[in-house]
């Protein structure tokens, strides 16, 4: 069996390669199959991710953190009353419960509203929403920003209803993405210009994998600000608007 395992020089090579990616590369084999150690490591990661899916968002804590930034914060619920319903009924996760009364007094004429939802990883939103908003606000000075809305059990499209209720031209939804084994805390940012009844996913722009080990807060804020400005200038979002912010950062072809 030892003949099938990478030999010592390769061990150190794979160790150095694993610093370049979280991917499970250079795993030890027994024949064609995984050796016991990587097999059990995978099983542990899956068990932890399963546990993370069922964790709940601490809305009070997040409200306090956002409040410390000096922005107004509103708490609402989607029509999905619990986690299991949220998982099985995406339609309910796109609808507000009886929250119009919470939002109505704050309706106005805003350029954008930030909507923060637990989605499939409360851990992601809990960890990354406040730091990202901290970085994005100075980058869009002059924008009229609505109160931040924290949603329990919300899907991306619930931002459309919230933007309409508050009178915001653009919905920016920060939401926990489905947890992966190596990244249980990825957050996505979905931007939609003037969302309406007929808005579809093709009308949204997305920055995914926002977390310190993925797309960091500064990078995400840069892209977000770039896309928001482009959206406002051109009056569109989605596939009609390419994310060409990399040209500014790394130089294009």
């Amino acid at each position: 069996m030892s003949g099938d395992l990478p030999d010592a020089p390769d061990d150190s090579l794979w160790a150095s390669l694993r610093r370049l990616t979280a991917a499970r590369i250079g795993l030890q084999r027994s024949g064609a199959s995984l050796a016991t150690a990587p097999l059990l490591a995978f099983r542990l990661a899956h068990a932890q991710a399963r546990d993370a899916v069922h964790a709940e968002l601490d809305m009070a804590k997040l409200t306090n953190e956002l409040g410390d930034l000096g922005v107004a914060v509103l708490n609402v619920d989607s029509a999905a009353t619990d986690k299991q319903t949220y998982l099985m009924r995406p339609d309910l996760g796109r609808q507000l419960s009886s929250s119009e009364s919470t939002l109505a007094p704050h309706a106005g004429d805003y350029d954008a509203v930030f909507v923060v939802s637990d989605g499939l990883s409360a851990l992601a939103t809990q960890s990354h929403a406040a730091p990202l908003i901290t970085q994005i606000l100075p980058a869009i000075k002059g924008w009229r920003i609505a109160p931040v809305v924290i949603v329990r059990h919300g899907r991306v499209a619930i931002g459309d209803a919230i933007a309409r209720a508050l009178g915001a031209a653009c919905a920016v939804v920060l939401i926990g993405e489905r947890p992966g084994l190596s990244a249980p805390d990825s957050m996505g940012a979905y931007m939609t210009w003037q969302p309406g009844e007929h808005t579809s996913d093709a009308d949204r722009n997305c920055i995914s994998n926002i977390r310190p080990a993925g797309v960091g807060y500064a990078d995400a804020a840069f892209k977000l600000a770039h896309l928001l400005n482009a959206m406002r200038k051109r009056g569109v979002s989605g596939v009609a608007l390419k994310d060409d912010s990399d040209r500014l950062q790394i130089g294009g072809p």
Partner: protein
Amino acid sequence: MYAATVGARRYVFADLKTLMAKATPARSGDALAGLVAETGEERVAAQFALADLPLSTFLNEVVVPYESDEVTRLIIDSHDVRAFSAVSHLTVGGLRDYLLADERTAEGLAALAPGLTPEMAAAISKISRLQDLMVMAAKCSVVTKFRNTIGLPGRLAVRLQPNHPTDDARGIAASILDGLLLGAGDAVIGINPATDSPERTHALLSMLDEIRSKFEIPTQSCVLAHVTTTLDLIRQGSPVDLTFQSIAGTQAANKSFGIDLALLKEAHHATLSLKRGSVGDNVMYFETGQGSALSANAHHGVDQQTLEARAYAVARQFRPLLVNTVVGFIGPEYLYDGKQITRAGLEDHFCGKLLGLPMGVDVCYTNHAEADQDDADALLALLTAAGVNFVMGVPGADDVMLGYQSTSFHDALAMRDLLHKKPAPEFEAWLQRQGLVDTSNRIRPQTMPSHFRALLPGAA
């Protein structure tokens, strides 16, 4: 109106799409859409009625209106009456028996394919067991070519999927190296980019092309960006082997993906004009998955498996190299658990193959679905036995960018060994030249070939 009588009870189904939905084996997405049979008996009653349905019904009654849906128009307008004539007298149940009969050959089924509509294929699958789906699919042979030959009997190709959360070139190269050493990459080396930016996509395409050229790998590369991004990059001279796009079975669902048939046609022609294939000119790579139309609120009251089959009508119009149903990616609201994912994977593979497509399956699940590696192992083995053209190869089965579990390089290797499958022939010869194959003709890298270290700028 359609009906079946079970004992003293008569079950009535208002129209074809209702009959199809009620006859569908249980899955959460159809329940979400409010389309499922109310009892087990109603489901089987619908299957009896469906089995007795003459195939010609599908040419006279459509499930999505012809006038408002270009996918329906494509299905009806491109139907090959001459090919259909061999089975035009049969019912759905009769066609199942016909397909299972010993007389059916790969050549005969390939000739029949243009005569069958997606709805006919879906109907057969609804009354079939998993075993039937495997046996019928295994009779089909769909061979496609670009820089190698995929889908030959006794072969199992692997898409090398080296995704990285920030598209880091060195991280991606490290995963490619791992996959190549373990015999993956003959279907395609295909990256899902973390963002859809043209600059990033161009940089990744250039990197993949450089690796392929430097190591003279007889395979193709792809960056799975939106078709409009790839089309722009083709015009700007980026090295595009295959154009990728996610597709669905209704015009409205495709619109939610930002595409229509005209755009796909334009992309197909643009990609063909590059003439980069060495052994063939299948240049499109499509991905599908049950539930995408419902997810886009574009399902027209049709069950998700029938709509998935309709996506294959879109695919076959463009002679793709690869069609991949990403079966467990969408989540438990569409396919709840391992049992539902397993059935859907075999249905999709069968329907695609019967309609003449080079089907691969991303055997996968998300962390919010009721599934684990045991479910993935079972479906992968069933598909390999059924002759699936290709599967995914992800390092350690854990996609660190998309956040889901697919199949690993090791999984594919174990299946090749267990069920005696070889890589695409051109790629197999390349693996032998690299010294990655042992004396028993198994892929068993003993140590890193020294020239592979050139793949690792600044790392080794």
